């Protein structure tokens, strides 16, 4: 056998599949125990510097996107692909042979019974389809019944499904577009670098009578500014209720607190805008001066160690943790309570009207359908393999009645038991 053929044989082998699956399972286990996406310093703090170095060197900080994980997956795809390519002609041949009674009756037998008077009744008791009459080459007449030949294709269809699933997931990961848009009602923001803009028309946090959370509902309008039609499309988005607009899916992702910020200069209102927690604003006529809203505490209290905390999600006593930067250097950080102001030279900054902002996720994954088809094929393949197990019964006329033979490559001893019971009942 040539080296190329040897490599192809190994790549398509079940042995290679078992090795790959075991390595993949071990890799997933290891990765699940290591917090993903952290920094070297974080790992060094939690484990040790040596362990942190190993984690970073082996890319265990982002294991599921690491080169070695991608390689394992690629080899698995190669294995599935070559396995299916090699097995396709074999399966076509097996299916042809399985559908040829003259070939089947020359093959292996799982069980048999002699001197059966009414083979059709036995076939019926075995829940087999009605037998047909077949003439053998030597002129004998046999009764032949077969079911579930499609089961032969189960593993092949399942492998194809997994291959498509991995391909759909991989392509989706590489080529998907994913953006987040957040804001309070009335704000309009661009969706990433696309030509689409989203206006938050309304945002509601619906609660149950006992105060627990029921649902987040964002009403929004999406517009394509490159289109002459400026009307846009409106939709309501909830958790578990995404909207489809312009080929994108819009998901209700999360929420947080925001507040209206007012900046005055020498007593005149210079700037008014909503600011979400974690967002910053440049002072209009002095962009090197930046106001950053670290957090909003709707019901401010002193928490553990005197750190700010919130007593409830009701805006009873709002507090605003802010930072001020000048020329990228932090020059102040404090908490503002109701009616407090920050004064920096001629500028006065204040926060008021705390409110929830909404964060929606805007996504386009053009290959999700491929992953879905793959998933469905995997399921169909498993159904075929597990529940359409091929069974054959045929009966040959003899002097004392019929000799009935049964064959079921997968059900084996269970098929034989069922056959023997049905035959015994007959007796």
């Amino acid at each position, binding site marked *: 056998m040539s080296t190329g053929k040897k490599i192809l044989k190994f790549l398509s082998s*079940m*042995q290679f*599949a*078992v090795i790959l*699956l*075991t390595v*993949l*399972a071990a890799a*997933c*286990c290891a*990765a*699940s*125990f290591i917090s*993903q996406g952290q920094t070297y310093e974080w790992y060094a703090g939690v484990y040790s510097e040596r362990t942190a170095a190993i984690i970073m060197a082996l890319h265990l900080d982002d294991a*599921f996107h690491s080169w070695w994980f991608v390689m394992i997956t690629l080899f698995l795809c190669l294995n599935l692909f070559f396995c299916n390519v090699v097995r396709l002609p074999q399966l076509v041949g097996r299916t042809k042979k399985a559908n040829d009674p003259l070939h089947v009756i020359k093959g292996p037998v799982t069980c048999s019974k002699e001197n059966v008077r009414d083979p059709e009744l036995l076939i019926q008791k075995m829940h087999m389809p009605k037998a047909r009459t077949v003439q053998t080459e030597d002129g004998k007449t046999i009764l032949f019944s077969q079911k579930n030949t499609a089961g032969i294709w189960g593993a092949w269809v399942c492998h194809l499904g997994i291959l498509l699933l991995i391909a759909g*997931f991989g392509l989706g990961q590489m080529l998907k577009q994913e953006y987040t848009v957040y804001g309070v009602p009335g704000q309009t923001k661009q969706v990433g670098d696309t030509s689409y803009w989203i206006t938050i028309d309304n945002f509601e946090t619906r609660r*149950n009578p*006992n105060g*627990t*959370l*029921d*649902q*987040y509902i964002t009403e929004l309008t999406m517009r394509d500014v490159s289109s002459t039609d400026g009307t846009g499309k409106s939709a309501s988005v*909830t*958790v*578990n*209720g*995404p909207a489809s607009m312009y080929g994108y*899916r819009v*998901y209700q*992702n999360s929420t947080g607190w925001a507040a209206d910020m007012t900046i005055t200069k020498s007593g005149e209102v210079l700037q008014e805008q909503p600011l979400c927690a974690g967002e910053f604003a440049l002072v209009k006529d002095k962009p090197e001066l930046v106001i950053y809203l670290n957090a909003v505490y709707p019901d401010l209290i002193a928490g553990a160690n005197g750190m700010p905390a919130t007593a409830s999600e009701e805006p009873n006593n709002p507090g605003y943790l802010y930072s001020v930067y000048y020329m990228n250097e932090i020059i102040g950080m404090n908490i503002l309570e109701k009616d407090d102001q920050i004064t920096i030279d001629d500028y006065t900054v204040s926060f008021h009207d705390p409110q929830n902002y909404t964060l929606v*996720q805007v*996504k386009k994954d053009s290959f*999700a359908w491929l*992953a*879905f088809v793959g*998933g*469905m094929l*995997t*399921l169909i393949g*498993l*159904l075929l*393999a*597990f*529940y359409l197990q091929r069974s054959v019964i045929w009966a040959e006329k003899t002097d004392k009645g019929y000799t009935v033979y049964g064959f079921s490559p997968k*059900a*084996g*001893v*269970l098929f034989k*038991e069922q056959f023997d019971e049905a035959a015994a009942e007959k007796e």
Partner: protein
Amino acid sequence: MESLERVLFTAVLFTYFAAMVLYFAFIAMKKDNLSKGALIVQAAGFLVHTCTIVVRGIAAGRLPLTNQYEFASAFAWGLCLVSLIFIIRFRFPVLGAFAAPVIFLIIGYAAMQSKEIHELMPALKSTWLGFHVSSAIISYGSFGVSFVLSIIFLMRDRITAHGFLDEHIPSRQKLDLISYRSVALGLLFLTITIISGAIWADRAWGSYWSWDPKETWSLVTWIIYAVYLHLRIRRGWNGRAAAIFAVIGFICVIFTYIGVNTFLPGMHSYA
């Protein structure tokens, strides 16, 4: 309703315990009639358990499949159902003697969990909840049965030294086939669990696969059973090696259910 549920749940605990004792007595006293009694008590326990779940569902006003208590109870229910089917279908009462302690352990774990009824968080309010969790219950129940069958397979030669068990435990070949049937059922339903979970995750979280620890461990479980299936058809590896993988697979199932929630919190932390 909640007090009725507690009474029924206590009855379930006692009935499953009684079934376990009867199964043990059947083996110890070598009396076939006791196995019939054990099977009847197990079936009665299953019916009471079904009523408990229904009452819980009415009290909560939703499918009772969302927290550790509810899922543990449903897991024991699924294992009881699948084991009953396999005991009856394959006329194998010894399976009950091995399955009953596992069922009792799981229902015991449920008894230790908080039974308080909470409102569902928005992510759980979905019609996919029913498909996703109920398929997981059947899947876990089937894997539980395959675990028990594999243990019997591995111990067969030691426990059949005296004639009574030898008569009541099928041949290794048949045990392997029955175990394969339960793994097949489990894997099919685990695949439905993963696919329905992915569709639901896409609607709720905007991503059908996020490598969340629960997702990852479900995949690990799926892979372990896929290896089991490959080993079974490979000459020289079937039988013992496959049975060991079925045992490892069930350890993964238990870790996916309890271990992940305890040690690896993620987006499934409520389950």
